[in-house]
């Protein structure tokens, strides 16, 4: 039966879950989802618009430009900065694209290194009690140390520049990735593992075909949390240990008492952080769900 054809008789439906899936994909289901999405967008936009209007009115009425620049001024600064058509002299070194690129590369490097270490370790610790008993106390004792506390040590170890910031991002991303992966690997339904073993699955096949796919929803959640944390740490790291990147623009605009530039940097961090999350985690999410047909959390 065509997936988009609505069910005509109860016989078309094999079992309740399949019926739900089909209903979701049916024309009516799609139309309903489209309506819901539209409603969500409209309501969300109204909320955002209301906040922007209140913010604009407050900033202008109470003459708060110096501490709370109005959104129109921030928007204008963002456009001018992105078009390199500055409304005042650009005091922050290279143009904004170079700063954003530096930050992006640091975030991706820290994120990749953290993923390379945290995901396999999480899977091993989640599946092996012996390893867990050795490793867990170390990880749990390091976890409460905030990422920002590693900055002075990172500067001491790696000097000022990229490596120190990447290290701090790595630290910030490692823990959410590790804990989520470990939780995913530990919570796999034992029936799935036993069934795979009954079918003759050996260790590597078991990991590839059962453990990894079953842990994917957790890993994706860990990545989502980790990437958000990465941007927070990038900014903190660049404010203290770097001459480039959006964090250094933010810090320097504060020294210049240019609140509009400061908010422009904050908005750009939010946009780029969101876009990075959509691009990387979103792509991974799509690829893994397509490959292993897993449901995300």
């Amino acid at each position, binding site marked *: 039966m065509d997936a988009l054809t609505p069910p005509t008789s109860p016989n078309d439906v094999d079992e309740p879950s399949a019926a739900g899936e089909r209903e979701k994909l049916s024309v009516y289901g799609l139309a309903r989802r489209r309506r819901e999405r539209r409603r969500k967008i409209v309501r969300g936009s109204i909320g955002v618009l209301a906040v922007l209007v209140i913010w604009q009115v407050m900033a202008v009425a109470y003459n708060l430009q*110096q501490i709370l620049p109005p959104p129109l001024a921030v928007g204008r600064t963002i456009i001018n900065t992105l078009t390199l058509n500055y409304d005042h*002299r650009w*005091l922050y070194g290279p143009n904004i694209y170079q700063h954003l690129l530096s930050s992006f590369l640091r975030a991706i490097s820290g994120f990749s290194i953290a993923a390379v270490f945290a995901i396999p370790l999480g899977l091993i610790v989640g599946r092996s009690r012996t390893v867990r008993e050795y490793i867990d106390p170390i990880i749990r004792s390091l976890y409460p140390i905030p990422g920002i506390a590693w900055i002075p040590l990172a500067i001491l170890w790696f*000097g*000022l520049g990229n490596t120190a910031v990447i290290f701090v991002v790595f630290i910030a991303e490692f823990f959410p990735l590790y804990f989520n992966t470990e939780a995913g690997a530990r919570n796999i339904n034992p029936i799935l593992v036993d069934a795979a073993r009954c079918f003759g699955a050996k260790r590597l096949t078991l990991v590839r075909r059962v453990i990894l796919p079953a842990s994917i929803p957790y890993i994706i959640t860990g990545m989502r949390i980790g990437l958000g944390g990465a941007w927070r740490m990038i900014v903190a790291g660049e404010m203290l240990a770097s*001459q480039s990147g959006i964090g*250094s623009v933010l810090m320097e605009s504060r*020294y210049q008492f240019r609140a509009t530039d400061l908010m422009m940097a904050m908005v750009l961090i939010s946009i780029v952080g969101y876009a990075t999350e959509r691009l990387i985690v979103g792509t991974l999410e799509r690829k893994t769900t397509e490959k292993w047909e897993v449901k995300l959390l």
Partner: protein
Amino acid sequence: MAKINRRQLVLSASAFVAAPQILRAAEPDTVRFGVLHPNLTTVIHEIAKRTGAYERNNLKVVEVRFKSGQTVEGVEQLWRGNLEFYMGGAPEVPRLNSRMIENGSPPPLAVVSGANRGHTSLVLSNKLQPKAIDEILGQPLRIAVSSLSSVHLAFFRGYLLTEKKLDLKAIGWQFLGIEASNMVPALLTGQIDGFLHSEPTTTLAIVNKAGHLFMQAARGDMGPNPPPATLLSSRRDFMKQKNDVAKRFMRAIFDANEAYIKAPAEMTPLVAEWSGQEEKLVADAQERMNPTTSLTQAQAQKWWDFIGTAMVERGELSPALKPFPDVFDLSLQPL
């Protein structure tokens, strides 16, 4: 029972009304003073405190400490009305006033005095031993500054512009923003080729053999009569509303100046305690520092010509900003 006559009644009533006001007048006025701490440049406050200068001027000074290198926070607090005076790095006050003028508001702060004239040193790695600055201006050196908005960088920029007719972009140096405490380790480990900063970082580098003092503004290496590197600022609304209190505060600072000038060597332990440095190091550093705080019209103008104009040139300050009256107000000083 004794009879109370009309005169006694009037006198008693007047005394009853006036007594609380007389008592209040005797109470010291509170002044919130923001200072960089631990720091050598703000030691005049500690001298005023220890020598009783504030008490003699009937002031109760509430000290608000800011970490070295965080002048921007101090100036923000002064502007937001949480301080009456602030002493620290220099360029932030004109910067803030400039932003206000750009927004169509009057400048809220004023520089009322200054200290540490020519307190800028260029320390180079021992590997670099040039005879004159022209030999290294074209080299790709990594020079540390506390921030890209540092007063020492502004000062050096002013020196290049006025003495060498050069812009910072025309030289091959890369300026790296590093916290002062990291400058000496960075120089020792070869991460930087030098730094532009003041005391005690300069003395620390020399004592630890991390580098050598190549130029120092105070000895005239960056032009004659160098301007102050530390400024004392206040809020204009406070200066207007409590002019008498503001003047008494400046009087106390001048009393502390006299105490320092009289016996600088005796002040070494006090300076060491305030700055968190060893006495021996402070004694060495004292050769290159002068924490006494006063500013003449000519010195203020020099500051503007040297540092202010370079900041206007760079786009940090609005061209509409004038040194007098938008930045400086020297009327509080008992000169």
